[in-house]
């Protein structure tokens, strides 16, 4: 069963990472290696900051674009991992090891299965 771990944090909060942002990058690298080796990782990416975001809506047949993210919240989506786990407990265990959990929030959601 696939679980999506969505990585949220406030802009610039990585400065608060224990050991600093460089240590965080090293820990992300090690984590990615670990989930790959365990055969759990399906996919994963980091996103560019929300300053690069464009939001698109179509209403009454008219498209409109907005500069910026969908919602101006304190913590923003910054990346994700797609993980293959046997149940929620295993997904929570892996998600809890994502470095951003130390200063941001990881939201775990099961991926919808349509053929049921």
């Amino acid at each position, binding site marked *: *069963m696939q679980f999506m771990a969505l990585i949220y944090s406030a802009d610039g909060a990585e400065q608060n990472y224990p050991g600093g942002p460089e240590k965080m990058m090293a820990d992300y690298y090690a984590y990615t290696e670990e989930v790959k080796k365990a055969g759990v990782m399906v996919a994963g990416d980091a996103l560019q900051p929300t300053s690069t975001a464009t939001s698109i809506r179509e209403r009454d047949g008219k498209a409109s674009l907005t500069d910026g993210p969908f919602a101006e919240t304190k913590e923003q989506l910054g990346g994700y991992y797609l993980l293959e786990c*046997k*149940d*929620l*407990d295993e997904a*929570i265990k892996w998600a809890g090891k994502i470095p951003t959990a130390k200063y941001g929030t990881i939201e775990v*959601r*099961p991926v919808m299965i349509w053929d*049921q």
Partner: protein
Amino acid sequence: MNPIEAELTRIVRANSGRILSALIKVTQDFTLAQDALQDAITQAIAQWPESGPPQNGGAWLYVAAKRRAIDLVRKESRHHADATQQILTDLQHDQDETAEWEQDIPDERLRLIFTCCHPALNVDAQVALTLRTLGGLTVREIARAFLASETTIGQRITRAKQKIKNANIPYEVPNHEDMQARRAGVLTTIYLIFNESYSAYEGQSLTREDLANEAIRLCAILNRLDPDPETAGLLCLMRLTHARRAARLDTEGDFVPLDKQDRSLWDQTEIEAAHAQLLDVFANGQFGPFQLQAAISALHCLAPSWAETDWQQIFALYGALAAYDPSPVVRLNQAVALANMGGHNKALEQLNTLEAELGNYQPFYAARADILSRCGEEKAAQIDYDRAIELSKNKVEKNFLFQKKSALAASLKNNK
């Protein structure tokens, strides 16, 4: 309720957890298992008045629920054919079903407890789901106990069951490394159920026995299936608290604080039994916060009067408790013990450091008012009583605080 309905309710309460856990283990489906049990109960309501209640009501319900579950699994199209066949095979594995209930069905309630109290469910959902599945309480009974509508409780349970299914919360006892944290979560939920029976924010009556008894029963089951000193500690704590319930209300239904309670109303047999159990637990030498709270409760229970309570030990136990739980409420209780040892000024000093954190906590002002009045600071005491009355949400508690304040005002007048 006629005698047969009462008997059925008793049997459902006693066996619901075991029946459901056996059915969920095979079907992996909370909703289906609960529907099957509900249909079995409906069947019992229809048949028992004529045939009389069966000799083994639990086995009867299990067999009826299992047959119903087989029907429901057959009807459900969403299962893959192979999985359905496997479930049906597992459900039908035995010929003599009554013997199966007695001998072959292992007690799976531990899995059920840990799944109902999974930390991915919010606490309200954990409480409702635990009472419904393990306690066998009806949605109406849970709604009444929590002063909520049946719709709210029903939705809460449905949503919890959906999350268990869709997010794939495992139907398992946690592995060794997670066990301690998960067990602590279960104990918190059980204690919450127990405390709910003693609080009555908008309500008029102060105890709701059903919930307290249910919390005690669940904790005893947990302690039997997964023995642990803290689980036993919580069990002792609840037993000791519950043994004093008859003295908590006076004949008019008003709340009586511990220092004014008629101790002859306490259930001495239960106190002695719980105290003996607590001493056994202590022999393990693995202390924890629930055991410490139980020890404090035991000292109150064993004291012949409020004045003759062993405040020194209680003070020390609160100090030990603060190491696990440095919350301001624990330090408040420690200060009260200190005041009762005669250290009024030191106690006031400690209380004053807590005011910022407990500024909206009624017991803080009630306690400080009491100590201030004993120190002769009547004016300051009156201000604290006013604040406590303002913060109290309970009618009987408010009455009690009013009486204390009036007594203080009367003594002020007389002294002038």
